[in-house]
Every structure is written in structure tokens, then in C-alpha cells.
């Protein structure tokens, strides 16, 4: 698993650089939350929400591949912006617990204004 996570970080950075330009991925991690959600998340610098809009399908495809490689089902994919700005600071792929399926991913609107939903499995 250690190698896979490291590879994911490098691959995400490489692919985003091909799409957008100078992107830095300082950290990637697989996480487990107390509610039952598990996921894969990558911290980023250099990406903006316009880039995410334009390359949404390609970014989704990369994240789906990477998350599956670390055993995370890509049920809910989202970008988190720095509040009040267009800077995207995290890309997250999450396998949701029952509560978060309804509470976090169940609204028609994005759950919070700093979150851009990229993919939701219905």
C-alpha cells in the first residue's frame, strides 16, 4: 500500500501537469473516518476551479483509476476550494457511509459552497 499511495501522488501530479500546467501535489493519503467513510485525498497547489470545470471528465478518470488502485470505490468525487476563492486545494474520492450518502452527498446543491462536486454515484 505504501508504494501505491506514493505512486498515486506522483501520477496525479504528472497527469494534472499535462492537462493544466505547473501543479504541485505535496501530499496524497488514504483515510478512514469515524462515521464509516473511507477515501483517497490529494492536497494540491496551482489548480483553480475553472481548470476543474474544463477538465472535469479527465480529472474524474484519473481519480477513479487512482482510487481503485488503493482500494477505494469512487462513489463521490469532489474538489475543495480555499473558502472565498477559486483555488482548489484538495481533490477527494470518497466511499460513503450511509449517513454521509444522505447528509453530505444527498442534496441537489453542493453540500457546502467551498465544495465542487465532480461525480456522484446515484
Amino acid at each position: 500500500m505504501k508504494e501505491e499511495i506514493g505512486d498515486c501522488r506522483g501520477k496525479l501530479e504528472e497527469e494534472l501537469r499535462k492537462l493544466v500546467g505547473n501543479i504541485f501535489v505535496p501530499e496524497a493519503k488514504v483515510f478512514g473516518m469515524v462515521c464509516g467513510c473511507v477515501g483517497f485525498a490529494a492536497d494540491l497547489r496551482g489548480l483553480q476551479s475553472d481548470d476543474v470545470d474544463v477538465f472535469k471528465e479527465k480529472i474524474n478518470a484519473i481519480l477513479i483509476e487512482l482510487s481503485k488502485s488503493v482500494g477505494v470505490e469512487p462513489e463521490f468525487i469532489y474538489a475543495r476550494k480555499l473558502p472565498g476563492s477559486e483555488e482548489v486545494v484538495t481533490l477527494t474520492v470518497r466511499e460513503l457511509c450511509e449517513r454521509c450518502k444522505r447528509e453530505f452527498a444527498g442534496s441537489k446543491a453542493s453540500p457546502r459552497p467551498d465544495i465542487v462536486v465532480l461525480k456522484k454515484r446515484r
Partner: protein
Amino acid sequence: MQLMIPHPGHFDALKDIIEVKEAEGLNEVGEVFMGGSPEVMGSGRGVLHAPLIEEIKEQTEYAHQHDLKMDIVMNSTCTGAHHLTFEGYKMFMWYFNELNKAGVDGVIVAEPYLVELLRDFPMKTIVSVLSYVESPQRAKFFEDLGADVITVDTNINRHFKVLEGIVKAVNCEIKLIVNEGCLYRCPFRYSHYNLASHLSSLNQPRFPLFAPDFYFDKCINIRLRDPTQILKSAWIRPEDLKDYEAIGITSFKLSGRTKAVNWIIDCMRFYSQRSFKGNLLDILDCPQMLRDMFYMDTEKLEGAIDHWKNCRKVCGECGYCNELTKEALTIIK
């Protein structure tokens, strides 16, 4: 009863809130509130959205079409004295004027100077919970400054005699926050909100913080070591709103504008219906994290309000909350 509902700020969330309110006939919901521009002022919560005036106008018009009032939160507890500079004065007057032109119904402020400035505008001046109004005397001060509504300090949510005194002392509307889970008489409260006010504005610390939310971490640790503090917090169960209406308080506010929109909608539903069964921590804002650690059975809290109404809050001589904690609070395995 009138309910004021948190709005995270993005237009789609407002549409979801209104859709549920109308579909389920939640007629008690009369107002929503959202953060203003962090370029003008921070607030007591993290700002996840920075609406420009044009967007505020558009959302306000939409709210009005659905019989909802729109309030803007500007309740920073520290501006670094910017408001007392000529430049600051001009900026606040300009912003209030723009909010007024946008049709905004009320502005929520904590700073007494801004309460006075708002006298020049027809919008309602809503004194924030962060003005810490905890006595009839302080309520009167704020009413004299120009308050139309006072959101009282949650620390006195269970001090019924004081609440009754405030209702009698002023003519303006008295509002209570019902789902705040902060520590009762929290020693960090002023410092924490000052920190949040800076972090949610452009008036940021000059160097990176080594403990970005020191007070929050302390707050969680205190409750883990002493879970009785969870019961002593100032939350009000949906079923107990009637006890406040009996002393003349009919205006209630939900906290939680940084939470997911579906969580907000759930809380709106339970408080409108005055009924919730389950883990009360599920509907408390701040700190939400505790709901994954503890289960507080709301049905076992039935009748506790009758004790708290007359409680002198001398915990060392009483022990009621300690006993209730044993009955109502369990650790989730």
C-alpha cells in the same frame, strides 16, 4: 414561533432549503442568514463563500419571492479598529448602503459602533450572539444603541429568570440560538471568536499559526474527559421551545451555516416540527464531531428543562447534570 435558518451561501443551497420548507409546509421558517463579504468583514464562523453584492441581491429577491427574509452576518468581534478609521467608516457605510439597495432585510452585527451606524438604514439591526447580551442591563444598552433584534448570549439559555427580565426590560425582539453546543461559560469563548473573526477576514495573522484551532481542540478534549459538560451546554431540544414561548420568547435561530445543506435542512425540519428522536448531538452545531463519540438520548432528557429553569447553576452543590449524564449519555462503541 419564528425560525431563522442558516444558509451556507451558495444559491443552490437556498433553493434546496426553500424547496423543503414549501413542500413540507414549514411555515415557521421566516428568515435565512448568510455570511457577507470577507473583504469587508470577517465573522464568527469560517467563511466558505464570498458573495458579491449582485449575488446577494439575486438571492434576496429569490428569498422574497418565497416569503423569506434575508439577513447578512457581519459579526466579527475584532476588526483591529478598522471600523474606527475614516477609511473603515466609509467602507462600512458604503457596504450597508449596498446591502440596503440589494433589498437585504437585516444585518447581524456584534460591534456596538456598527449597531449605531445601522440606524441610518431601514434594514433591521440584529445584535449578534457575539455581543454577549446576558442581562437586562446590557440588553437595554443595545436597544438604546439601535437594536431591533437581540440574539442573547447562549450562556443564559437556561437562566429563565434572566431571560424573563430581558424580555421585560426591552421592546425589541429577543432571539435565542437553539442548537449551539458550546461549553457552558466557556473560558475560550471570547478568544475563539476573536480568532475566527480574524481568520475569516483579510485581517489575518502575520505568520502561520502553529495551532490553527487551539480552542476547538481544547473544547473537544475537555468534553472527552468530562462528558457532563455536553449536558451543561446551552442547547434547547425542539420539544422544549414551548417553555421559552411561555416567557414571551418566540423567535429562534438555528446555528450551522458552515455545515452541509442537508444537515441544515434536517435541523430546520426537526425544530419546525418541535420533535426529534435519537442522538441529540446529531442536530447540534459546533462541535459536530462529538456525535460520533457519544449518543445523547433525547427522550431521556424529557423534563430536564423543568430542573434547569430553576437551577442556580452551582454545580458543586447540585449534581443533577452528573446524574442525568449517567442516564442519557452513552459512549458509542
